[in-house]
C-alpha cells in the first residue's frame, strides 16, 4: 500500500480496500461493533423513541480555525439528533475520497472525528469508503448518519410553539461562516475568528432536564438564524419578532459582515441551537445552557407572537423590518 496517497484501488473493494479500512480507519475508532467489519451493525437496546438523521459534508477548506470536515461531520449529525432531544446512540460514516488525497490528512480527519465522537460520547459503528478518480472529488466528502433515542415524554416540535414563547440562543451568530470566508481567502481578509463548531447534545440534555416543556429546537446551520426561524414560523403558523440588540455578534464577525455587505442573520453556524421555550422558563433555560457550558453567552433574542406569521426584527430605534430569506447564498457586495 502506498504509504502517502489514497489510490483508486483503495475504493475497489479488493484487498487494498480492506487494508485501508482495517489498518487505517478502524483502529482510530476501535470499538467491538466496528471491529466486526459488517455492513449493518446492531446498536443494542434503547429506551424510548428512536430517531435517525443523515447529513453530508463538503466544506472547503477541509481544515479551518475551530475545526475541520471531520469534526463537522460528527457535530452536525449529533446536533440534528439533539434538536429532537435525542441521545445519540450510534453513527455510521461514508467517505468519498479523491485519488491522490494525502493519507496524513485522512488520518488527521479521522482522529478529529474520533475525538469529537468521544466527547459526546457516541460510537461510530459502521462505515463505507469509496475512492474516485483525481479531479472527480474535492479531496474528501463525508456523510454521516446518526441514530438517537428520545427519552420518554419528550417531543420537540414547532407545532408546540405558542404566542408569548421566548426564543433563546446559546451564543453569538455568524462565526462559522465568517471563519470559512477568511479561511478560503477569496477576499484576502485576515481574522482570527474561529468556527463555533461544537456538539450540542449535552446542552440540549441539560435544557430538557430543567425545562421539560421546551417546545422545539433547531441548530442554525446553513442559512443561519433566519433560516431556522423561518422554518419554525412555517411549521407553527405563528410569527417571531427578534430584538436586534439582544442578538450577539462578535466584533470580528461584524467587521467581516460590514466589509462584505453581508447580513449575519443569514450566516451559517455549527454550534448554535435556537430553542423555543415558554416565556416563564427562559431564564431557567439560559441557566441550564450556561451550567452545561460556562463559556456560552446565551440569551433571549426574541419572542413568538400571533400577529402575522413572519420573521421581523425590532431595531434599537423602535422600528421594525421584515426578514426575508434570500434566494440563495449571500454574495458579497460593494453597493
Amino acid at each position, binding site marked *: 500500500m502506498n504509504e502517502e496517497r489514497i489510490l483508486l484501488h483503495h475504493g475497489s473493494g479488493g484487498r487494498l480496500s480492506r487494508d485501508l479500512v482495517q489498518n487505517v480507519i478502524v483502529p482510530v475508532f476501535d470499538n467491538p461493533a466496528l471491529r466486526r467489519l459488517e455492513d449493518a451493525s446492531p446498536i443494542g437496546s434503547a429506551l424510548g423513541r428512536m430517531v435517525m438523521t443523515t447529513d453530508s459534508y463538503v466544506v472547503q477548506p477541509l481544515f479551518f480555525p475551530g475545526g475541520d470536515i471531520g469534526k463537522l461531520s460528527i457535530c452536525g449529525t449529533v446536533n440534528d439528533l439533539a434538536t429532537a432531544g435525542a441521545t445519540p446512540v450510534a453513527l455510521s460514516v461514508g467517505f468519498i475520497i479523491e485519488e491522490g488525497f494525502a493519507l496524513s490528512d485522512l488520518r488527521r480527519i479521522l482522529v478529529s472525528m474520533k475525538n469529537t465522537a468521544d466527547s459526546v460520547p457516541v460510537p461510530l459503528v459502521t462505515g463505507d469508503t469509496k475512492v474516485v478518480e483525481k479531479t472527480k472529488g474535492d479531496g474528501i466528502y463525508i456523510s454521516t448518519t446518526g441514530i438517537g433515542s428520545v427519552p420518554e415524554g419528550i417531543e420537540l416540535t414547532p407545532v408546540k410553539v405558542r404566542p408569548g414563547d421566548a426564543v433563546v440562543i446559546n451564543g453569538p451568530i455568524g462565526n462559522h461562516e465568517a471563519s470559512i470566508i477568511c479561511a478560503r481567502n477569496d*477576499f484576502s481578509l485576515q481574522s482570527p475568528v474561529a468556527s463555533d463548531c461544537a456538539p450540542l447534545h449535552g446542552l440540549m440534555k441539560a435544557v430538557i432536564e430543567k425545562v421539560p416543556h421546551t417546545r422545539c429546537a433547531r441548530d442554525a446551520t446553513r442559512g443561519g438564524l433566519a433560516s431556522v426561524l423561518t422554518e419554525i414560523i412555517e411549521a407553527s403558523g405563528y410569527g417571531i419578532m427578534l430584538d436586534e440588540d439582544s442578538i450577539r455578534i462578535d466584533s470580528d464577525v461584524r467587521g467581516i459582515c460590514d466589509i462584505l455587505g453581508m447580513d449575519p442573520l443569514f450566516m451559517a453556524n455549527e454550534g448554535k441551537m435556537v430553542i423555543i421555550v415558554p416565556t416563564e422558563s427562559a431564564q431557567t433555560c439560559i441557566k441550564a445552557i450556561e451550567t452545561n457550558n460556562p463559556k456560552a453567552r446565551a440569551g433571549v433574542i426574541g419572542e413568538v407572537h400571533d400577529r402575522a406569521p413572519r420573521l421581523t426584527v425590532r431595531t434599537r*430605534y423602535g*422600528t*421594525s423590518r421584515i426578514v426575508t430569506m434570500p*434566494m440563495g447564498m449571500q*454574495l458579497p*457586495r*460593494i*453597493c
Partner: protein
Amino acid sequence: MGGRGKLRDFSQYRSPIHVNTLVKKLHRIYPGGTLKIMEVCGTHTMAIARYGLRSLMPQGLCLISGPGCPVCVTPASIINAAISLSAFPDTAVLTFGDMMRVPGTAGTLELCRAKGADVRILYSSLDMLENAKKERNKHFVFISVGFETTTPGIALSILQAEKMGLENVSFLVANRLVIPALHALCSSEDIQIDGFLCPGHVSVIIGWGAYREIAERYNIPCVVAGFEPADIVMAVDELIERIANKTPGVGNAYERVVTEEGNKKALEVMEMVFKPAAAEWRGIGVIPDSGLVLRPQYAHFDALTRFEVPLVTQEEPAGCRCGDVLKGIIVPTECALFGKRCTPQAPVGPCMVSSEGSCAAYYTYGAGE
C-alpha cells in the same frame, strides 16, 4: 487623546438617543403637507430600509428611492455582453458580487458559472491584477460598474495593469456619473422632488460643491448624507430646514469625510483614464455624458473592442415600471407587477434584482411598518 477615543467609537452615529432626538427635531420643524425627498443612492435605500427609518418620518414626508443603484441601472445589454465574454476559451469574467444575479436576456452570470464558465467574485478590482499575474494563460475581463465611489479604484487598476504591462486583462466599462443623472431627473416634466439626499461616498470623491449646479438651476436643496442612521436623519433635518426656510442650496451633513472639492487624486485618476459619454440607464433611457468610456490611450483595455462583442440594446418587459420607480414618480407598490409577476425570486425589472433596488427593499424589508 479624547478626540481619538471618540473617533474610535463609530457606534455613536448609530446611537438610539441621537437618532431619536434628531427624529424629534424633524417632527418639530416639519412644515406640514407632502414633501418628497429623493434618496439618490441605493445604499441609502438599504440603510433606510434596514433601520426602519421610513416609519419614523413625519406624516407627509416621503422618502423616494432614486437611480443611484449601479446594479439597477446597468443595462441588460452589458450583462449579455459579459455572458458572451465568459464563453470565450481561456477567459475568466471577474465581477463584484452585486452583478452575479442581474438578469440579462437569457440568464445571469451566476447561471453561467453553474454551466461551467469561469466567473469569479472579487471584493476589490485591484485583486484582478494578482489573478492576471498568476494565470498568464488566461484572459481576465473585469465587469466595471459603479458610480464615482468605485470608478477611481477601477481607474487605478487600469493604470496599474498598464504599468505592469499586463496583456491578459480587459474591462467591460459600464460606469455611470451621478450629476448628469440628477440633471436628467430634474429636467424631466413628470418629476416632483423637493429635496435630494445626496450619496455620501460618491460625494467623498466629487465633493459637495458638485451639487451647486443642481441646487441653483432647479432650486432644489441638496444635502450630502452619511450612512449611519444618525447621519441620515440629520441630513433629512437639514433638507427640511432648507425647504421650510426657502433656502435651497447645498448642505453637507457628512463633514467627517466629505469636503467641498472632494478627493482630488481620485478625480485626477478618473480623468486620466476615462472620459464622459452618453450612456443607457436601464429603465430611464439614454442620458448624455452620464457614462464613462476609456480614453484612447487606454482603449486597448476595452473588452468589447478586444473581443468584438457588440452591445445590443434590450427592451424592458411589458408592464415593467422600473423607470417610473427610479424617477420617483411611483412607489414600488404602485407597479402592477410588484409582488405578483415580479419578485426577488423571479425579478422582471432591475429595481427588484438588486437587494438595494427600491422594489427589492420594499419587498424584503416591508414598506416601513
